[in-house]
């Protein structure tokens, strides 16, 4: 099993619903977030285009954050999830510095926090809250090892990219372009 998220930039309207839903679901304190939205504009008026993208932890296969964690709090779980065990985290912030996607933040309660793909929801058979709230349904979540899965099919049939491929982290959040 290999969990992956596939996000269709052609459909995202940048509304940031994913951000609010995640904050509520995971009780992320106001002022912090586990996911965020960016806009890139290209060209000159009127030949201009934009890409809107919801970003988060990429649950990388080769995660610098897991490698640099001195206590083992940052670790892999089934399906390739990258998680932080809060009571093992000493809040040193090495992982925050190491992440090329700037996906981690130091929680005011003294540990480092980030996207878990809503692991607690996956265990209940639900989708991550960002995926299930998205009004445009531009986010897909599933098992890349399952060839019948929507995520697998989308990556087979559409053009896609990953963020910062040059850093060799092997991310598992894919963007349809």
């Amino acid at each position, binding site marked *: 099993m290999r969990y992956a998220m596939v996000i269709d930039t052609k459909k995202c*309207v940048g509304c940031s619903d994913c951000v609010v839903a995640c904050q509520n679901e995971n009780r992320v304190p106001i002022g912090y977030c586990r996911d965020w939205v960016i806009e890139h504009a290209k060209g000159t*008026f009127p030949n201009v285009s934009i890409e809107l993208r919801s970003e988060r932890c990429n649950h990388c296969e080769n995660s610098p954050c897991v490698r640099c964690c001195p206590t083992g709090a940052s670790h892999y779980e089934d399906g390739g999830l990258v998680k932080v065990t809060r009571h093992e985290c000493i809040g040193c912030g090495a992982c925050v510095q190491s992440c090329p996607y*700037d996906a981690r933040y130091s929680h005011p309660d003294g540990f480092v926090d980030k996207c878990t793909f809503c692991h607690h929801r996956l265990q209940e058979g639900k989708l991550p809250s960002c995926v299930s709230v998205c009004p445009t349904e531009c986010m897909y979540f599933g098992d890349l090892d399952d060839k019948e899965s929507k995520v697998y099919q989308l990556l087979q049939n559409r053009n896609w990219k990953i963020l910062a491929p040059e850093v060799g982290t092997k991310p598992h959040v894919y963007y349809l372009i």
Partner: protein
Amino acid sequence: MNKSRREFIKLSAIGAGGLVLANPLLNAMIGQVNAAEPMDASKIKRFPTYCEVCFWKCAGWVYTDEKGEIWKIEGNEDDPHSNGRFCPRGTGGLGMYNDPDRLKTPLMRVEENGKQTFKEVSWDKAFRFIAEKMNKIKEESGPESLALFKHGSGGAHFGKLFKAFGSKNITAPSYAQCRGPREVGFNTTFGSNINSPEPVDLENTKCLVLIGNHIGENMHNSHVQEMSKAIDRGATIITVDPRLSTAASKSKYWLPIKPATDIALLLAWMNVIVSEELYDKKYIEQYAYGLEDLQAHVADKTPEWAEKITSISADVIRQTAREMAFHAPATLIHPGRHVTWYGDDTQRLRAMAMLNALLGSWGRKGGFYFPEKAKVPSYPHPGYPPVNWTWKDHLDGTYALAGSSIANVFVDMSHPDNESDYKIKGWFVVGTNLISTIPDTQRTLEAIQNLDLLVVVDTMPMEITGYADIILPECTYLERYDDMRVSPNRFPNVAVRVPAVKPKYLSKPSDWIVRKLAKKLKLSKHFNYESYGEVIDWQLKQMGSSLAEMKEKGVLKMERKTPMFIDEDDYHEFGTSTGMIELYSLDLEMEGFDPIPNYTPHPEPPQGFYRLNYGRAPMHTFGRTANNPNLNELMSENCLWVNPFVAADNNLENGQEVWLKNQDGVVSDFPIKVRVTERIGKDNVYMVHGFGRANKKLKRSFGKGISDSQLITNVMVDPVMGGTGMRGNFVSFVTDKPESEVIS
């Protein structure tokens, strides 16, 4: 990639960052639960609601945690407005409940040491004061001299109080300041209003045409969802907008039109469709009146003619017209929502309706469906007293085609310069911040000074509360029952709202406020219940359900009784005077207006000025969410979109703060950050509406960004229905801080 997350989020909203993280200490104040505590799933409860953050009224579930505090709000999967997915505002609706700046107690204007101030008073004292003033107005000038301005669910309760008291002078800015021209434009063509939600069959459309309608930035939930599905299906989207809106960025054709020239484009499109005989011949022959008149009218409105006016090339006009015809009747020219732009808006919306008619999309799959609405019995109450006059008497036949009351006319009726016999002496303002919603704020303020009573009911200290004699704190939708949501849709349905938590502070639901005030006015017989839950339960039982059942379901769906589209084999009668689709409008002709729309040039910005355009951001509703802690954090201020050439001409840099000065010399209270972007052309600037809040009690949003309303002093009134056109205002940049300081 070395920017912080916070700046990244803001990028989508304002361009360059430089924004400060919220102070973690604030979190304790607004009741955010400690994330380190695990949640006890068995103690989680859910309550049905429909959202009140905007008018789309999506039905959903409010979840409370082990402490009984609101944890999250999610969509109800059976609801056709949300389909189980709330938009960011609905998801962040709990911020309305948690906002520490909420109105907490009734406040009365008093004079202390020669200075006016607000003093906390008991509900009882507030009611006694209001009842006394209302009775005095009634004695002196009749109950009709009291007017109600309302928006949202709370206003409905006050509407009943007004009718019981003897006034039908009830209005909402959502008509003449927003969608009114659309209702008249479509009604004069098809004999039907559009209403809300718009009955557009986006789900099946093959070609979607948006005229300045920025779906995706306006977060009309089900329409955003359906547009996304249309993108997935490969439907053609044609967007006409001077700015590369989000929708424009997803369109096959983006037509960056010269502002204020839309009618010329619409006429040229009709020219192509008529002259190339691309219209739906069978449909037009069967249902339409006035084709020959239209043919003659648009004969010289060629794409070449329109190119000179709109700056859209004749080729693109032809190509897009042909593409629309190719997909017809599954081509939808979306009527939009906020359409009070240039004062000839009814005619522009009529041109859009007529284009839909030519393509045969009204009452057809992929165009417009015929909505059905659930029938909900009225809770029994004694009849209302007759009234001696209404706003219509004041107008004496003017704006005869207006289907609803005109809020700006109510301001006129209250103004000292009103010489008619119909004078308004007191206002109730419920859930609408008139300072921002009605243009020409100065005139509104002059009317307010002329009142004997101003009662403001709101959840937040919006600017209008600062002018009140008495302020009544309404609790949020999460803390109250309200009327059921009964909206026309593909299937009739109702949704209930049940309180998930008790009202915070001393705030109260509007139905309670109305009942208690009615008692003081000796009108209790009209409000014969102890809790509004009783009213809903009674209604539901008449319909074969109950409140108890609805607490489990949230939404009740019913079967349709009539066809959703025109039955091709059956005769279809339209609600116009001819019973046909009127390409030539007899109603407009009778009232002395153009029976077929004409293009009239509008004034251009003077040298050094730029047209001020405004719109929405997906995470905000008007000005009411600017202070919401959850939504403020997504976008805490608006910014001014400026083309790079304009920025260079005016020595402006990205992120620089500027004040704006309009054509009448009005300077904005606050500065706004410049966003230099290629997404906008050189003749206009753009900002999101709802910022620049001027009440210091709104601690999070005070002075952040600019209020476009403040700069809209040139109001072009639609002669057909009284709507207030707001897009003919021009601004220049002021780079040094102006001398006058805002005092509030």
